[in-house]
Structure formats: structure tokens, C-alpha cells
């Protein structure tokens, strides 16, 4: 770019011209400031304060990013909290429904409480499948995977190889009941002795013998820990009516049952499972005791052992995941199987939870949210967390039980089942849904306070940025007016001076 050639004769005029140009440029700049509201149109024009502009803008951008993430996270967390709250209420209600002594016969074998439990299970599945903006909230890191299978598939399997929870319960019940519903015990009478023992193979199913007692010296009670454990009642002389013998049993779910049999006089009658008739000879009495033990064991098997089996099987089912096949009773031939439950083959059982299941990452840490420079809150959740699993187990055990009016054991089974449902849904030894809710709420509170903080910091930074970048309108207008006055005065003076030349006065 070539420079204007210098004309010495025009030096003064050139200076004046340059001044005018400069003032004009200032005028244009002020006009621009007025129109755009900005002091400068480039970082160069901002001067040394450009650092403040850059830093505040960058910080404001970061705050904006955090706030946006918080807003999105907040919506998800709200949904999660609501879901968990609903689920917690649902479990409390189910527990209330399963109160003892509330058995009312119904024609189709279903009591009101269990119908509700089925609905609750179904609702819980829907809740755990909650989706916000295309993201499943209870799926761990697999946001795109609907975490829980459908109610029907979970209950009944797919009918083509994959077993549902009902089948698992049934298999376990068979395995625990064993042949003849004796709960994997044998009961033989030899002379005046009644021998009760675990099956020879000592399978990990059915009852565990804990001990025997007798209230009379006429009947000797002995117990051998084994294995296999065994116990015997030896009738040395006929007992008196009212004498009692007991047989203490452990159920597979850890509950304890005691069978108490009362000696009855020949004349009196009563159900075999609660007592035995004193026979003519000790051997006859022993035979009666044997029959009574069998009846008592069978009743126990059809009530509490069945409920215990259901709870175990349901828990096994819901413990399963894609990386961890649920435990299955080896079979068929469940009543005689002796092998312990083992992880089933892939494809043999419905995997109810399909989400992310990496044990190395805690459920909460499957989704973290950076809310501040160093503050990261954990907001993830998985449908197969213990509290959710236990809830589903409670619902499922209740829902799958059958209490037909034709079955004389229905009332006792109802008590046994509801007892397990109550225990499960009271979460006394396990994680509670509320525990998860508390953790999520903590994150929510942290997010809210971070957002508040960002708002305050943002306002402050915005003020700082505006102070550097934004033009003060009043100041600009005043400058504009002053400049206008100066420019007008200069124009006028120049005009007057230009006429003031000797040439004009020579004639």
C-alpha cells in the first residue's frame, strides 16, 4: 500500500483533514457502540481488559454447561425419586396386606392380598422401566436398554425353554419336598423305635434336623449330628396322655419349625399331625408315633417348607443377571436330586434384568454428573439393586402362592407365605428402597446448591464481563454530543479560516 504523496504546500490542509477524519472515525465508533452496545468490535480494541473478557466468557460458558447438565440431571433424579417413593409405598402396602390371621377363603384359590401383590409386581416392573428422554433410569450404564422384562415373561417364562419365576419356585419346592413330601427325611419304625434321618445322600434341600426332645422318660429321644443327621424316639414304656415329644427342624430359608406331638389316650381322637394315640404296646405306640411324624412332616412341607422354598427360588431368580445366571435346581427328577443348585445354562432361565451389571462399578457411580469444578455427584441406579430385588421377591412369593379352598392346608400355608412376605418386605437386614432414595436425594440437594452457586457466580461474572465489554449508553451519548459539538466548531472555524486569505482582499 503506497502512501499518499506528500505535498509540502498542503501540509496544513492535510493536517486539518487528518483531524477531521480522525474525529469522523471516532464518531462512527461511538455510533457503533450505541447501536451494538459493545465497547469494542474485536479483542484488539478491548485493550488490556481483553483478558477479563476472555476469562469471564470462558467461565460463564463452563457454568452454563454445568447448569445445563444439572437441569437435565435434576429431571432424571426427580423421576427416580418418584419411582423409588412409589415403590417404597407399594412395598409397605403389600406388607400390610400380608398381615397374619387374615386368611379368607376364596373360590379360585386367590386371596385379595395376593392379587394386589401381583398388580404391585407388575407396577414395580413398569416403574423400574421408567424412561426420560429416551434414557432408562434404572439400567446402570446401559441407558438404551429397557432394564426389566415383562411381567408375563418373568412369571411364566417364554414357554420355549426359558423358565420364569413360577417354574423355579415349583422346581425348588419339589426338590425341598422330596419324595412323599417328607422334606428329604426318612421316617422308619423298627420295633419300638421311630428313626428319623436325613436322606443318605444328605442333599442340600428339605429340612435339617436340629434335635428331638421328650417330656417323658418312657420315650427316649436321641439325636446324632451325622452327617447325615438322624434322630430317634424309642418307646420303652407307654407314655401317659399329655406327654409330648418334639422334633426341631431348620428350613432352607433359615427359619425354624418345631413339630410337637402329644400322646393321646386311646379313647381320644385328633389329627395325626398334632398327636399320636397310645397303643397297646410300646411297639404299637411307636408305630403310631411314626405315622404321626409322617403326617406332621407332610403338613409342614405343604405349608412352611413350601413357602420357604418359594422365597429361596424367587430370590435366586431375581439374583440372576446377564453376567450371572440364576441358580437352578438340577433336574428333572427334582424330588430326588441331590446336587446343590447351580448357575443355569444361558437361555434356560429368563434374565429379568437386562441392564448394565458390572460389579466393579457401584450402582450410583454408573452415572455421575459434574456439577462444579471438583464436585461430582452420583445419580445412577440399577433395577437389580438389593432393595428393588427384595421388593420383587416379596411381591412374587405372595403372587405365586395358591390357597385353594379345597386344600385343608391353605390357611396354614397363607400364614407361612405371608410371614415370609412380611419378613422380606420389612427389609430388616437388607438395603431399603429408602436407602437408595436418600442417596439420590443427597445428589439432588448437591445439584440444587451447586446450581444456586453457579447462578450467583454467573451474575457476578456477567457484571464483570459487561463492565469490560459493554458500552455505557449515557457515557456514549455524552461523548457523542461533545464530539459533535467539537466537529461542528472545527468545521465552522475551518470554513471561516479558509475565507481568510489575502487573495480575497486583493482587487
Amino acid at each position, binding site marked *: 500500500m503506497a502512501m499518499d504523496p506528500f505535498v509540502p504546500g498542503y501540509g496544513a490542509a492535510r493536517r486539518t483533514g487528518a483531524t477531521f477524519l480522525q474525529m469522523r472515525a471516532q464518531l462512527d465508533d461511538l455510533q457503533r457502540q450505541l447501536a451494538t452496545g459493545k465497547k469494542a468490535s474485536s479483542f*484488539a480494541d478491548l485493550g488490556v481488559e481483553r483478558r477479563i473478557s476472555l476469562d469471564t466468557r470462558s467461565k460463564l460458558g463452563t457454568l452454563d454447561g454445568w447448569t445445563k447438565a444439572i437441569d437435565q440431571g435434576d429431571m432424571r433424579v426427580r423421576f427416580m425419586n418418584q419411582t423409588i417413593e412409589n415403590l417404597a409405598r407399594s412395598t409397605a402396602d403389600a406388607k400390610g396386606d400380608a398381615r397374619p390371621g387374615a386368611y379368607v377363603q376364596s373360590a379360585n384359590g386367590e386371596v385379595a392380598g395376593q392379587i394386589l401383590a401381583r398388580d404391585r409386581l407388575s407396577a414395580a416392573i413398569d416403574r423400574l422401566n421408567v424412561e426420560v428422554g429416551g434414557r432408562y433410569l434404572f439400567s446402570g450404564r446401559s441407558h438404551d436398554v429397557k432394564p426389566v422384562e415383562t411381567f408375563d415373561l418373568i412369571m411364566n417364562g417364554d414357554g420355549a425353554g426359558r423358565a420364569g419365576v413360577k417354574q423355579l419356585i415349583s422346581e425348588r419346592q419339589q426338590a425341598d419336598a422330596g419324595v412323599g413330601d417328607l422334606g428329604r427325611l426318612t421316617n422308619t419304625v423298627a420295633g419300638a423305635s421311630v428313626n428319623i434321618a436325613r436322606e443318605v445322600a444328605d442333599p442340600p434341600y428339605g429340612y435339617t434336623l436340629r434335635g428331638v426332645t421328650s417330656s417323658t422318660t418312657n420315650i427316649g429321644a436321641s439325636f446324632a449330628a451325622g452327617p447325615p443327621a438322624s434322630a430317634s424316639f424309642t418307646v420303652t414304656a407307654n407314655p401317659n396322655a399329655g406327654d409330648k415329644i418334639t422334633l426341631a427342624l431348620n428350613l432352607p430359608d433359615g427359619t425354624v419349625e418345631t413339630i410337637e406331638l402329644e400322646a393321646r389316650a386311646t379313647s381320644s381322637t385328633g389329627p395325626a399331625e398334632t398327636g399320636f394315640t397310645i397303643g397297646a404296646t410300646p411297639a404299637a405306640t411307636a408305630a403310631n408315633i411314626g405315622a404321626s411324624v409322617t403326617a406332621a412332616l407332610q403338613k409342614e412341607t405343604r405349608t412352611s417348607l413350601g413357602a420357604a422354598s418359594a422365597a429361596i427360588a424367587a430370590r435366586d431368580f431375581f439374583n440372576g443377571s446377564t453376567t450371572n445366571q440364576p441358580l437352578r435346581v438340577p433336574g428333572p427328577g427334582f424330588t430326588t436330586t441331590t446336587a446343590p443348585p447351580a448357575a443355569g445354562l444361558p437361555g434356560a432361565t429368563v434374565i429379568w434384568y437386562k441392564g448394565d451389571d458390572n460389579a466393579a462399578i457401584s450402582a450410583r457411580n454408573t452415572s455421575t454428573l459434574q456439577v462444579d469444578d471438583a464436585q461430582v455427584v452420583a445419580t445412577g441406579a440399577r433395577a437389580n439393586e438389593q432393595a428393588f430385588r427384595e421388593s420383587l421377591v416379596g411381591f412374587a412369593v405372595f403372587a405365586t402362592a395358591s390357597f385353594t379352598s379345597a386344600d385343608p392346608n391353605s390357611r396354614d400355608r397363607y400364614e407361612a407365605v405371608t410371614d415370609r412376605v412380611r419378613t422380606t418386605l420389612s427389609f430388616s437386614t437388607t438395603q431399603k428402597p429408602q436407602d437408595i432414595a436418600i442417596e439420590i436425594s443427597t445428589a439432588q440437594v448437591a445439584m440444587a446448591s451447586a446450581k444456586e452457586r453457579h447462578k450467583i457466580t454467573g451474575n457476578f461474572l456477567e457484571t464483570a464481563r459487561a463492565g469490560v465489554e459493554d458500552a455505557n449508553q449515557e457515557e456514549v451519548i455524552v461523548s457523542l454530543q461533545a464530539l459533535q459539538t467539537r466537529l461542528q466548531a472545527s468545521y465552522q472555524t475551518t470554513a471561516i479560516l479558509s475565507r481568510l486569505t489575502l487573495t480575497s482582499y486583493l482587487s
Partner: protein
Amino acid sequence: MGLGSVMTNALSGLRVTQSGLDVVSQNISNADSAGYIRRRSNVSEQPIGDQAGFARVAGVQRMLDKVVQKQLWNETSGSGYTATKANMLGALDQVYGPPDSSSSLGSVMSKFTNAIQQMKSDPANYTLRTGVVAAGQEMAGRLRSLSGGIQDLRGQAEEAISAAVNDVNRILTQIQANDGKILDANGGQSSSPALLDERDKLLTELASYMDIRTSDNGNGSFNIFTTSGVTLFAGSNATKLSFDPAASVGADQLYNPDPALSGVGILRAETGFGGSVDLLANNSIRSGELAALVELRDKTLVTAQNQLDELAANMASALSDREVNGAAVVAGAATGFDVDTVGLLAGNQITLDYTDSTTGQAARFTFVKADSAGAVTGIATSGLSSGDNRVIGINFSLGMASVITQIQAAVGAGFTVSNPAGTTLRIVDDGAGNTRDVNALVARPTVTTTTGPQPAPPAAPITEFPFFIDTGVSGGIYAGSFEGKMQMRGLSARIDVNKDVVSNRALLVQYSSTSTIPQGDQTRPVMMYQRLTGQVRVFSTQTGVGGTSTSYRASIQDFGKRLIETQGSTIQSAASLNEGQQIALKAVEARFTEKSGVNIDQEMSSLVELQNAYSANARVISAVREMMDLLLRL
């Protein structure tokens, strides 16, 4: 004494006034001619014997102050320099964009990191993944357009140099012709003011291109030199300048004194004996438009390009380079680290952080993997090295034994370098000597695939991936190689988002080729965010950000901000320098005008004066005539 001599005097008075009028009319008519110096007719008395004589015109004097004229040339050169620089950098300012624009570099960087921050909290979200890819593409696009803008300006500078050289040659030719006329006209004795005006005008014009000084040979001829001493015009011979402009200018076309290696034009002065002098190599032009153009082309704009390249290279490397931390080893009293050099690509770095225990100063050695001797030289001349971060090329093609020798030679005493096994590099300090403490030894191999096999837990997964690629190389991997040429140079003009990631956004999450990573896995997004905003990286001093001897250590985000700030400040200082220079020029011009400019008022009063003198002389003649008549009538 008689009437005759009175008549002669009066006539001489008429002649003198006529001549004066002639000068006045010249002044008035040339008031607005470029380079016209006000003239004055000098009248002196011509004595006849010891008697008073008649008036005669002793000569026409140019009202010129040579000192002020020299100052004028000086300031003209200066303002040619500052104006050119301010003008070109003003254009660069536009390239960087206004502070509140959503497309300015700062905003685009902010957008990119924010997009990653958003995706980090919801990685499976397709919209957010798309946001990251789009913001990455915008970032790469912005870098490319900025780089394009800078190279356009360099190209403009190249063209402007070419045009300026042509103009300078024209001026020198004209000066030569003019000088010939001056010598012819007056045999070098007294020059015609018009020719001198013409010569001075040409010199002022020349001064706007380069800084000059002149020396008069006394016989009317004179010499012109640059202030550095290169002869531009000697006696009556004009030096010819030559410049071979490059057809197009790109980031890796840099000036080199060796014409075979130079990517841009070389400015030469032909000495007249078939030889020539490289005016750039010797820094012979120090002011004026030419100096500004050369400085812009070879320094200012190259630095601006370096900054962008450094930013681009760091963004690419931050996301693709692993950090393999050395395992601590103890050898007697000496402590240090073992690091495996396997998997390093040419250009990848191994950094050794240590403390000089005698001064307490922390410093770093950066060993760059080279596969050829040429690359080692390239690294040595790259300008990446600084006092606290010495960057040294290590030729790995000669085997581990040689690598150990090379590194040992580079680090010197105080360290012991060895190769305990395989490709492992061990560096320990001097233990009991306690002059050096090794703090860290890190290998930084570039991950070349978007998904790869993963180490068995609990080893940290490899989540780095080439998010940004170099479209200028096959495969697109940016490793910072020096094989053939420096890969970083001009990277900002070639950077783009990996096509694989654009077509498969799941790759923003999926990092394993051996197992399926859940769609909501945050590992890779967290790595991306941390690398761009949290990781402290070392930026070379050639970017001009930070100091000239200490490398700038900051996150990429911070470097981006400082880069814009540095450019803003460079541009602003060029503008304010120019403002100051224009004021200085105006001041000198004012002084020059005062002495040498035509003032119409002054000329008018001279005119009145001359008119009066003329009529007085005419009156004398008329009086003589009357007296003669009176005599004749007797």
C-alpha cells in the same frame, strides 16, 4: 553617473521583478504539486567597478531544510512500516472475530468443551453425541479458516512485497534518469530546482518503502544506501532489486536463505557484477513498508500460525495420546523410573521431569521418537526447545543400545540411562550425589484406533482415540512426526474430526474392541473432558504465549484464551504504534511545511511587493524619459 545608468538600473529592477513574479507564479501554480519546494528569487547587486551596480537575479533558491528533510524520510519509512503492519494485522483481527460472536475462536472452543461436558452426563443420548461431533467439526473448521486467513495474509504480504519491489525498481530507474539530467543540465554545478524537486520527491517515495540515507558526491551526483549500508544507487548506477514471489503461500512454506529450501520469495539486490545480496538474510531492510511486509510474512504471521498449530496439535494429542507412567525403581541410593517404549510412533514423546537439586528448579526433557537422522535434525531446528523443556530427537531406528547412548548424551551427568530388558527405558538419578532428582518418566504413545483391545482389570482401560485427525497424511493419525517434515506445521489447516467418529457416534463411548461397553458408560467422555480442561500441558515458546525462555504450562482451554489474548495485544500494539508514528510524521511534515511549503498569503504579499517594485521601477524609467525629453527640448 548619468541618466543612462539610472535607466540601466531601472531596467534591471524591472527584470528582477519579472523574475520574482515568475517565481511567485511558479509557487502559486505548484502549491499543490507533490514534492514541490517553495522557491525564492534571490536578488543581489551587481557592482560595476567600485560603483554601486544594478540588480540582478543571483539564482532561484529552494527553501529546503536538509535536516528536516532527513527526518521526514526517516518518519516516512517509519510510518510506512507501522501503517502496513497495522493495516495487515487489522485484517487478522477480523479473522479472529469479535468477542461476542458465537463463531470466534474462544466461543467455538467453549462450545466444544461444553458439548463434551453435556455428553459426559448422558453419554447414550444421541443428540448430545451429535452435539460433540458438530462442535468438534466447528472447532476444526474454525482452526482451518483461521489458518487459511493467516496464510491468505501471508500471500498478500508476498504479493505486496513483489509490487513494492517493482515500485522501488521504478523509483530507482527514475532517479537514475533524473540524475543524468541534473548532470547534463548544469554540468553538476548548479542544479535546476525542478530536477532537484523531482529527485527529492522520488526519494520520499522510496523512503516509504525502506529506510534510506543519502550522501552527496558534490558534483551533482549522489549515493543512496539503506541505513544498514546496502547501496541502492551509486554515482549514476541504480541497483536492481529482485524478488521471486511464490505462486501460493501455505503454512509450511517458510523463508530460508537457501533458495532451494525457501518456500517463499527471496529479496535480493543485484550488485551489478552478476552477484547479488540477500537482503532478508542480513536483515538489511529495517523500516518502511518492505520491512513490515517481510516481518509479517516471516515472523508475526508465522507466530500466529504456530499458535494455531500448537493448539491443533495439542487438541489432537490430548485425545489420542496415552500417558504411560513409568514404574518406580530403586537402584542403590539412586531412584528413578522404568517405562516401556513399545508402541511409540515417530513423533511421540517420552518426558522426563526432574528437579535440579542444586538450584531447586524443576525442568523437563522431552525425547521425541525419530526414525531417521533427518528427523533428529528437524527436531533440533524446530524451535520447540526451551530452557525448561529441552526437546531432543532420539533416533530409534538404530536399536535400544543406541537409544540409551543418545538419551544419556542428551541428559548428561546426574542421570543414569539404561535398558534393563526388551524395550524398557530406565532413567535413575545420581542418588548420593544428589544433584538431580527424577520426578516422573512418562511415555506418550498415540492410540491409532477408535476401539482397541483392553488390558485386564485392574489396569486402567485405554480410552484415548484419534478424535481429531490430520487430513494431510494417509491414515490421518497425528503423532507429531518429524519424518520428512514437521507434522505439526500447518496442522491447523488440515485438522478435522475423524470420519469414523462422524459416521459412528457410538465411538464417543465405545472404546473396547473386545467387549461391549454400555451406551451410558462415561469413561471416554470423562477422559475427553479432563484432557481438554484439566490436564496441564506444555506449550512451546515459539507460540509467543507465556515467556520466551519458559514454556507455557496450562490446560488447552487456558492456552486457547491466552492465544487470543496474545494476538489481540499484538494487533492492538501495532495499531497504537502506528497511531504514534502517524503523529510523529505529521509533526515533521508540519515543520517541513513551515519552511518549504507554499503559503498563498505569503506569495500574495510578495506579489503586492513585486507589483509595487515594478511600478516604482517603471516610474523611474518614465521620470528618466521625461527628463530626457526636457533635455532634448532645450
